[in-house]
């Protein structure tokens, strides 16, 4: 990039990390934020499940979304992946407005997610699960598949190689032939992450990735999330109740309560924030 254009971008993006929109790590100042949600909200019959949600996530940021049970965290994920259509506000992914898009289009734009309650294709093998993630990466048509044209063999081989490569990220390549539903819990969670990565995302949404894991597994997961970010140069946003994980790896944390953002900041800022403490532990009795 020429010096001139760098300068210009600096001027442009200086306005982006405005305090009301969250914190972006310094290295991401000069690239378009991967996600920009403005005044996002959804109503279910008068109940505002999410209201005035503003957030910017940098290109390679690891962001955390925390909050007490029922705060609307998964609803935010469902809004970002277009499972629900927002009733208010806009979502920009890499600078593109996602208004009117459906889940499939949102995924093609680069948003991939895992689920709180694991949603693997349980009757299929581990490798086939990853291959479904690769669905839009390695393509060939229905007739090529039925009549086994040369393209079929070529693309199947590519899919196979890519699937194994992705599985090797979590040392799961030996399990490629096993039935996904028969895997132990931790491996199922890891497989969900691999499957989401296979869709070639620019923003990976992880819904409680450490749920049900022991401290040892959680630590490994933390290392893996950082490894994924570094290797694929993508942003990660995660919902998690395990505070060690959130405070350990998240560069920016956003706290949600009753559908509204009550605090944004780095781990230290959040830990010291009185509103957050109140939301989690309740108000101190006066007197």
């Amino acid at each position, binding site marked *: 990039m020429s010096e001139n254009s760098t300068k210009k971008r600096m001027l442009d993006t200086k306005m982006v990390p405005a305090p009301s929109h969250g914190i972006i790590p310094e290295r991401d100042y000069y690239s378009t934020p991967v996600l920009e949600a403005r005044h996002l909200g959804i109503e279910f019959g008068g109940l505002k499940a999410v209201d005035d949600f503003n957030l910017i996530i940098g290109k390679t940021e690891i962001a955390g979304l925390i909050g007490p049970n029922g705060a609307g965290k998964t609803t935010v994920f469902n809004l970002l992946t277009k499972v629900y259509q927002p009733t208010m506000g806009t979502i920009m992914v890499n600078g593109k407005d996602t208004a009117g898009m459906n*889940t499939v289009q949102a995924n093609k734009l680069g948003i991939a997610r895992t689920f709180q309650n694991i*949603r693997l294709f349980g009757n299929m093998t581990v490798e086939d699960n990853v291959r479904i993630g690769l669905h*839009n990466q390695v393509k060939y048509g*229905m007739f090529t598949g039925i009549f086994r044209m040369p393209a079929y063999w070529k693309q199947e081989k590519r899919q196979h190689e890519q699937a194994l490569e992705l599985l090797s990220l979590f040392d799961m390549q030996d399990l490629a032939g096993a039935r996904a539903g*028969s895997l132990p819990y931790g491996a199922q969670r890891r497989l969900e992450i691999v*499957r989401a990565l296979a869709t070639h995302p620019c923003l990976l949404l992880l819904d409680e990735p450490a749920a049900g894991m022991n401290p040892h597994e959680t630590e490994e997961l933390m290392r893996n999330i950082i490894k994924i970010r570094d290797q694929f140069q993508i942003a990660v946003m995660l919902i998690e109740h395990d505070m060690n994980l959130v405070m350990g790896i998240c560069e920016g944390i956003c706290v949600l309560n009753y559908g509204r953002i009550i605090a944004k900041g780095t781990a230290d800022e959040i830990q010291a924030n009185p509103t957050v403490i109140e939301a989690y532990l309740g108000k101190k009795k006066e007197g």
Partner: protein
Amino acid sequence: MKLKKSTINNIISYGIVIVAFIICQSMIASGSMTRSLKGQMIPICVYIVMAVSLNLVVGISGELSLGHAGFMCVGAFSGAIVSSWLLAALNMENEILRLVLSMLAGGVLAGIAGVLIGIPVLRLRGDYLAIVTLAFGEIIRNVLNCLYFSLDGKRLCVAFNSPNVPGTVVVNGPAGTAGIQKIASFPVGFALILFTLFVVMNLINSRSGRAIMATRDNRIAAEAMGINVTKYKMMAFVTSAVLAGMAGALYGLNFSTVAASKFKFDTSILVLVFVVLGGIGNIWGSIIAAALLTVLPELLRAFSDYRMLAYAIVLILVMLATNNPFIRSLFDRLIHRRKPAAQAQRGGASE
């Protein structure tokens, strides 16, 4: 190149079908097959194709369709019309070529019907989808009940609800097809089974097939992975309709006259029974169930009046037996001998 497991499985499947065909063919040639059973050979082929194609919708794509006989009906009628037209207009004497072309036409028209029906139906889910497919199956049958086709020289004439059509009548409303040459032959029926197996098995082991199964296993996750659910449900539905249409054409050309009332709701249910009894999603189960249950009423002739009762009892017994955990595990051990390596791997992973 090392062959994949699925490829080997496919080759074994084709092998078994070919062997079964050779046995049947030699039995026919040596005259050791009874007349009634010989007459059953083409309907068996037809019902096997019907069951396998319905299994693509019910088992692989996971939608309960109750209107499969409708597509068979479209295939039977269009096959009969095309075969008569080919004879009259093009003077095509070659019976096999005429049969194959009629089957292709039946498949294409049933496929078009599948697309038209699929557009509204696949917006629905579960029970609603089942009810609407049932309605569409009946609508197709009732529409064909009112259609009159005739050949005036090379011209094909159509009339709705009035039997005044010029020339020789091919489809005579509620009376069904008339004056059709019985050109269906067992080898072509057998080829159709092979073709169906080829299409369905190759589809399952391809990118599209995996997408179809993913939408069945978990719709929400499939959408989140960027799979266009409606497109792949439609793909399974239309492929199944095309195969059913081809089977229908074969069926229609096996009789000199076939009425639309032959393709009632009962026929859809009969095919569904084959699929359920053979195991939903199990292609081989469908083939075996379709073949046995088509022959069974003939074999039960000894019970004369109690034939259908015996048929029902056999169905219930098979149902009970296949759901019995002991018998299931016995079959599991017989068929899928689990590899010790895979077991050890699974054990290692759960540490």
